[in-house]
């Protein structure tokens, strides 16, 4: 059974099913975020449904591009023999 599950995520032939499942999950999460109660919200953004999805996506993109910028333009990434 484990092999089947892992194959579903690896094998090329399931690629369309994977994508459909993935987007369905995204829609469900945002929909659920509109339905849950927000009585204990501390901060302004916590009262906005869908905020976490937006923030998660934004964080991810920001981290990728800021890090790569620091790596390439900031000179953090070096050839592997840099210390030799």
């Amino acid at each position, binding site marked *: 059974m484990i092999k089947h599950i892992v194959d579903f995520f690896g094998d090329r032939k399931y690629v369309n099913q994977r994508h459909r499942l993935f987007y369905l999950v995204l829609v469900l999460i945002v929909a*659920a975020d509109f339905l849950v109660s927000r009585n204990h919200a501390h*901060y302004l953004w916590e009262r906005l449904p869908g905020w*976490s999805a937006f923030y998660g996506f934004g964080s991810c993109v920001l981290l*990728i591009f800021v890090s*790569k910028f620091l790596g390439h333009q900031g000179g953090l990434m070096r050839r592997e023999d840099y210390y030799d």
Partner: protein
Amino acid sequence: MTDFVHPTLLFVLGALPIPFLKGPIRKAYLLLIPALAILAVLTMQPGNYGTAQIIGQEILIAKVDKLSIVFATVFTVMAQIGIVYALHLTRPGQHVAAFIYVGSALGVVFAGDYLTLFLFWEGMAFASAYLIFAQRGEQAIRAGFRYIMVHITGGVVLLGGIILYGVATGSVLFGPIFGEKGVAAYLILAGFTLNAAVPPLNAWLTDAYPEATVTGAVFMSAFTTKTAVYVLARAFPGTELLVWLGTAMALYGVVYAVLENDCRRLLAYHIVSQVGYMVAGVGIGTEMAVNGAVSHAFAHILYKALLFMGAGAVIHVTGRRKLTELGGLYKTMPVTVVLYMVGAFAISAFPFFSGFVTKSMVVAAAGQDQRALVVLALTMASSGTFLHTGLKLPYYMFFGTDRRLEAREPPRNMLVAMGMAAVMCIAIGVFPQPLYALLPYRVDFEPYTGVHITESLGVLMFTALGFVLFLKALDPENTISIDTDWFYRKGARRFMWFAEKPLARYEKAVSDVSETTALPFLHGAARVGLWIDLTGVDAVVNGVARSVLRGGGMLRQLQTGVVTHYALAMIVGVIAAIVVFAVAWR
């Protein structure tokens, strides 16, 4: 039944017979000792054990309370898992080192005074260094020496702080350092934060862990940084500086993880990131925050070990460690994939996995403490955590480009150890109450609320969307990243260059001066000295000698060798003495 058996004793004394045991007996023995240690921790009673006076200082070998018990629990459980993972090793060296390492970590956890703490602190550094050296190979040995040198430096700083603290307060008992912090407190803090891998003192970790042996790195990922979290929680709760250091390091580790190509170095950067949550929690210092930090340390040890075991299994089977050289292993290692992913879900704090019930406690405590910026930064770091350990690493290691590597599942003991850790990760996530009951303060926190679940899933799954859309930008590159170890790796080279070039030139200049100026002057001075010696000093010496010789000749004439002459002289002497006594004394 005694109230307290020190688990350090079990591990350190228990390490001694390992080299003399063989085959199945050794395996059984290796499994028995951590089991006994778990039993010792479960049955111990809070209190103070082993007080003594050494060089006029009060020593407290073991102070048992809720905080030390929770760390000791996870340490002994982790030791059991780590030993199972390493059970296939035939050489005894790494087992002995691991036992002493675990024993020392437990020694720190129970230490009631700074001197005991320091002793075990250094024990940890040396025992763990062996796990790097055991990898052999030039790269590992160089990394091992850097590791040990950084830790010795940190140890000296810590010892300096301890001595100043002892002189200032008159006691070396280990406890919270309140109030205005002086030099002593900051030196101790620096020693502790070095082991917690707080930037800029983090590079020893990410430098050394990926060079350690497959099994050694699993132990290392668990103990050094988490004993540091323990001592910080004990001595420095509520230190504002730690809030910001912790928040910064949570993001620091994530940024570097984007750039990393070595699978275990990527995981090591996530230790830095995750320990950031704990350091921030300790810094906030409220009951909920300290609970969060401690429980997160507990969960972290298990899932991080699981991730290191997964990556280690890949290295063990394929002999490769770079993401640019791995891929397509899911077909041959499906069980490893699933077990690794349990660890990845746990570190990413998916609902029903351990990180969900612990990490959120730190974030919620920051929220309650009105620290909006900390909440936002830590949430961003969570996104990065899933991006790397949950998506990037498994994608390029197990899926991605099929490199047609020859692979199979790792040895059974490795899978069993990973299974044990995976069960713990899920059990803590589903039933957090037993862990909450172990925490130092009463827990008033409910992780499973609707909004918490949807918010977490929102952050995580939309991170996955970002990953899917920008996959190309994340392709691993064949590079290494410069971290603060640059200062001592390149800096040491500068120093050597300085030693060879300017310093050597300086030395040459000095010797030139001595040859052209000083040497003739010295020659002249020597000649003058010789003349004075010959004419003045010799004359005096000769004169004295001649006088002594003459005096000796005169005295010799008195020595006739005839006994009666001596007797006569003695009688004359006695009479003279009586006369002197009778006439002069009166």
